[in-house]
């Protein structure tokens, strides 16, 4: 049964996973995402659907439990925040190398190092460019509301299984901690049949399944690398998701995802009140990145402002997409500071029409 609730983003992820028919969660607490684990522990999904929830001894253990669960063809996931996600990178590289599906949630906090517990968007490079070693990518989804936090759990699992590749929900402490209305889907039953590659026990009618990321034969390894690239290219053709607001007549474009996109929605309204024809492009998939709509719009724009709670990471993908056709600037706040809508509208005005300098 569909249900309307007021929930924190972190809680919505946990509840959505139970309803999406997840088989297991393996996690380790860290602010600002501990509510995912806490909600699941309190909710006892084992009694509701049979889903397993386990607090591992460390983040590294948790991601390797996910590796094991995924190898059995099960719908498994983990969540953490920036320092914990760094610890999971080795596991993610192995999971990508073994072509296994899983979902990882990163509720980003400021860094580097232990940084702060406040929200940030400074893990964009880590999420979209690989993160661990080797030529691999994650499918990266960036929710901008508590509703999308819930919806992207199922979407993440679906894409992960479709491509046999880890998917990540890249969100931040603000979305994790805030409450909004959320419509929860009816329960989807857990899987009872598993993919042919899954290590569910050899039967006499087939060869044994082997899950590994190791292949010492250079020619085969190169072939495997090309196969992965073909998979990522296919994602680029079929899975790009984005949302455009007030772009039809826009002269200046804001590009922002997640929390920043919500703030930019209001900044667009404020800029338009000042007579600046602003619009917003919100990437929903950060990998694959919506290069095409940006490229198509670039020649009719007077400027692009990429807004991100970082020193400027996504702006590099914006620059690549428009390839010099239009001036691109970045504006960001760091250390857990969230910019206000007025601040962004002012920066847009001053960066592109002169005046007060916000560098």
């Amino acid at each position, binding site marked *: 049964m569909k249900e*309307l609730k*007021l929930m924190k983003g972190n809680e919505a992820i946990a509840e959505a996973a139970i309803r999406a028919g997840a088989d297991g969660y393996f996690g380790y607490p860290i*602010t*600002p995402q501990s509510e995912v684990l806490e909600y699941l522990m309190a909710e006892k999904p084992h009694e509701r659907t049979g889903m397993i929830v386990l607090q591992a001894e460390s983040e590294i253990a948790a991601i390797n439990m996910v590796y094991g669960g995924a190898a059995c063809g099960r719908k498994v996931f983990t969540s953490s925040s920036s320092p914990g996600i760094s610890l999971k990178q080795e596991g993610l590289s192995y999971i990508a190398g073994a072509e296994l599906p899983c979902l990882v949630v990163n509720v980003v906090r400021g860094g580097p190092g232990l940084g702060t*517990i*406040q929200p940030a968007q400074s893990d964009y490079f880590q999420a979209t460019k690989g993160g661990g070693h080797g030529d691999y990518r994650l499918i990266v989804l960036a929710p901008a509301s508590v509703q999308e936090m819930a919806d992207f759990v199922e979407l993440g699992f679906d894409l992960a299984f479709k491509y046999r590749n880890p998917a990540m929900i890249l969100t931040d*402490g*603000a979305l994790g*901690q*805030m*409450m*909004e*209305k959320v419509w929860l889907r009816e329960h989807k039953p857990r899987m009872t049949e598993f993919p042919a590659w899954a290590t569910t026990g050899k039967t006499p009618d087939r060869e044994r399944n082997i899950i590994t990321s190791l292949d010492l034969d250079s020619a085969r390894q190169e072939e495997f690398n090309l196969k992965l690239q073909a998979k990522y290219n296919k994602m680029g053709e079929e899975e790009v998701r984005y949302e455009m607001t007030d772009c039809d007549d826009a002269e200046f474009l804001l590009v922002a995802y997640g*929390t920043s996109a*919500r*703030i930019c*929605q*209001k*900044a667009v*309204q404020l800029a338009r009140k000042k007579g600046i024809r602003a619009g917003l492009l919100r990437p929903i998939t950060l990998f694959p990145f919506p290069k095409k709509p940006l490229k198509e719009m670039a020649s009719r724009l007077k400027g692009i402002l990429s807004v991100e709670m970082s020193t400027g990471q996504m702006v590099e993908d914006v620059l690549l997409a428009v390839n010099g056709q239009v001036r691109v600037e970045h504006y960001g706040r760091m250390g857990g500071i*969230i910019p*206000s*809508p*007025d*601040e962004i509208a002012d920066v847009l005005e001053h960066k592109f029409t002169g005046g007060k300098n916000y560098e």
Partner: protein
Amino acid sequence: MTEEIIIAGFGGQGVLSMGKILAYSGIMQDQEVSWMPSYGPEMRGGTANVTVILSDGPISSPIINKFDTAIILNQQSLDKFESFVKPGGVLIYDGNGITRHPERTDISVYRVDAAEEASKMESAKIFNMIVLGGYLKVKPVVKLDNVVRGLEKSLPSRHHALIPLNEKAIKRGMEIIRQMNSI
């Protein structure tokens, strides 16, 4: 209608739960709502604040720096948020422990001595509901019926026996709030 509110005070005063009840009440009358807490290494006795937005339409930014209403429950929060109220907006404060009172003349200032009133009632814990009552008297953004329904939805059923007391506190807040200036 869009109402952008900040509620700020000490941790343990019920700032976050008051915001949550307000948000739930908004849901009960089909409004869009957002509840954005300041979260941090704060504990009981530290500062806590929450931004609540109630709107008939979709909510863009849940993070804002100008408010229609500020509900202020301690001196630090008054010092920090008085300047964040939009001109023509509303500031509601509890006079308990306040040494420097609100000074703005371009906003409506109301005082609700909820801490003092709560000490006279059955439980001091209903302090935040007295404040909420005061707010709803000034800004009837949600109906009292919907607040009660919001309480039913947000409180675990073992606490439902306390709902009549909460309702009484809300009504008491509506009675004792008074305007401190005229604009």
